[in-house]
């Protein structure tokens, strides 16, 4: 795990979680500013960027005041519209496929969507945060499962994938590298590559060297 000190802006309305998150991040040497609702988040990030201060990643809850529906998501979309490169990690207690789709509809680089549960594994969470900050796409396995669930009904082509290929595709969609996939599935990297080639062939996608573009292509295909 790389130790990078990040400048993080947190949007979370529940004080308990906000304070916990701030304590966690601060202890790891990150610089943290926390706010309690969507509009404050947008204002804070814009103010910091205007002053020339760094914002490496924005972490935001989705459901926040005043309407307790999707303020966080709207704030994220608004920020991404004005600053397309700004990494944003959505951090929610439940998964809405619609939100993921909206968020990934544009450029999916530097986008993350995780269940709050994931913070229980602190190191993994920190790793995910760092990856989003570097411009990767990180999706919760739950998000991927739901997207697959939604789309497999629509796309007969997905049904043609073997179980193994499906597993590989899910891990790819989570933003894992070939090496990580091989370790997680206890198969060789060569087998992983073969599976991926087969997936691309079945889905009619061109092979690309970049892990990252690969995820995007897959997600696009999934209708995200």
């Amino acid at each position, binding site marked *: 795990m790389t130790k990078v000190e990040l400048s993080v802006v947190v949007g979370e309305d*529940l004080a*308990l*979680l906000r304070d*916990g*998150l701030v304590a*966690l991040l601060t*202890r790891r040497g990150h610089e943290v500013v926390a706010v309690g609702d969507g509009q404050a988040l947008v204002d804070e990030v814009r103010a910091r960027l205007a002053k020339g201060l760094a914002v490496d990643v924005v972490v935001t809850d989705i*459901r926040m005041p005043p309407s*307790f529906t999707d303020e966080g998501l709207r704030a994220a979309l608004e920020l991404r519209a004005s600053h397309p490169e700004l990494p944003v990690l959505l951090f929610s*207690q439940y998964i809405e496929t619609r939100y993921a789709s909206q968020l990934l509809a544009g450029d999916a680089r530097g986008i993350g969507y995780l269940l*709050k*549960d994931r*913070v*229980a*594994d*602190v*190191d993994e969470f920190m790793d995910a945060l760092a990856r989003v900050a570097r411009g990767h796409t990180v999706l919760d396995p739950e998000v991927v499962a739901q997207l697959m669930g939604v789309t497999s009904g629509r796309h007969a082509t997905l049904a043609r994938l073997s179980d193994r290929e499906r597993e590989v595709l899910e891990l790819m969609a989570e933003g894992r590298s070939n090496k990580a996939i091989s370790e997680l599935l206890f198969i060789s990297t060569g087998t992983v590559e073969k599976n991926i080639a087969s997936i691309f062939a079945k889905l009619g996608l061109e092979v690309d060297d970049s892990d990252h573009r690969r995820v995007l292509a897959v997600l696009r295909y999934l209708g995200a």
Partner: protein
Amino acid sequence: MTHAADSPPSRSARLPFLTALVSPRTWKEFGYQWLMLPLSVAALAYVLLVFNLAAVLVWTVVGLFIPGIVLLGARGWGVMYRGLAAQFLDSRIEAPARYVRPKGFWRTLGALFVDGDAWRALLFMFLTYPLALAATIINTTVFVSALGAITYPVWRNFLPAQESADGTWHKGSQWGDNYWLDTPGRMALQALIGVALLLLWPWLVRGFGQLFRLLSTALLGPTRSGERVAALRATRAAAVRDADARLRGIERDLHDGPQARLVAVAMQLGEAKAQLAAGTDLDHAAALVDSAHASTKETLIELREIVRGIHPPALDAGLAVALETLAARSSVPVRVTVAPAIETELGAEPQIQSLVYYSVAELLTNVAKHAHAASATVAVDRSASGDLRVRVTDDGKGGALVVTPDGGGLRTGLAGLGRRVAAVDGELTVDSPAGGPTVVTVTVPKGKPA
């Protein structure tokens, strides 16, 4: 609109028989009948149209939508007829319940043809044809005959002279054999009959008017069952809305309470685990575990509160026990009396029992929050008519109002409670003069299980 016949009341009260002839009411009703005549011809054509269309299109099945919609159009005629009845007959008729289109193709098609209100309007349209015809013919004939009889002495002079069988010449009408209406006595008698007819005529007109009025009320107004269905539909919608609101409330409580706390606990324990594994900062790890432990206990308390909101465990021990528990938690001293008979009866009606429980819970919350009361009482018994009655009384400042949600303001809870009570045909009444005391009564009719 007041009846013209009623004003001025003194004269018409004394001489209704004489004034009826010149009263606007009579002439309005006469005019109504004449208006109905051409309308009823058009209406009859419309009625026949429905049946003809249905007969032609029945083979196509889907085409039955057309007569179905035409049938529904009878409701539009009903609107016009109710307007006319209000204008000319001084008869205000409530509109029947609105047509509600069910979901689905076949159900919509079916509903078009079983819309009772449309069929009744159609029947009205059909029946007005003979009625309007009879009314106009009879009323007009009587009126004209009466005028003719009265003015006979004048106009008979313009008749040509006729020769009777006995060779005498006469000017006037002949009734039977050689009975000529040309003597002053006979003419006076006929004029008297004319006057009698003329005085009778307004009552004939009003009689037909009354027939139209009865027909309109019976066929264009709401039926008892229609009103019942509309009321049920409204209370059911309210019940669904309330249930939905309650579920949302529980979801909110869980999301912001235990779920968020558990995330925090998981975060703290995860961090503590990492610290312990690294073995660097054991004090910090201990602090984290401590905090997580405290959070867990708070989560348990929150969960208990939420569970109690979903179904109060105390209710399982009976209404009296549950209400005593409620009373004990209230910040205002509360005395609870539950008639023993009701306790056992309600055991068999859990829905009503929990309705009573939540009503009391909400009312006591209101008392604690708004009333500034020193004490309150809760009484559950049966009224003289056997209805279940729940009374919550407090000695606070009074002035409680039932405020609908869009009305804003004080104690919107009462409006919500009223809706929930209405869902079981119950009633919520508030008696709360400024300065108190406040008595809120919830009654649920006898034999009305939810």
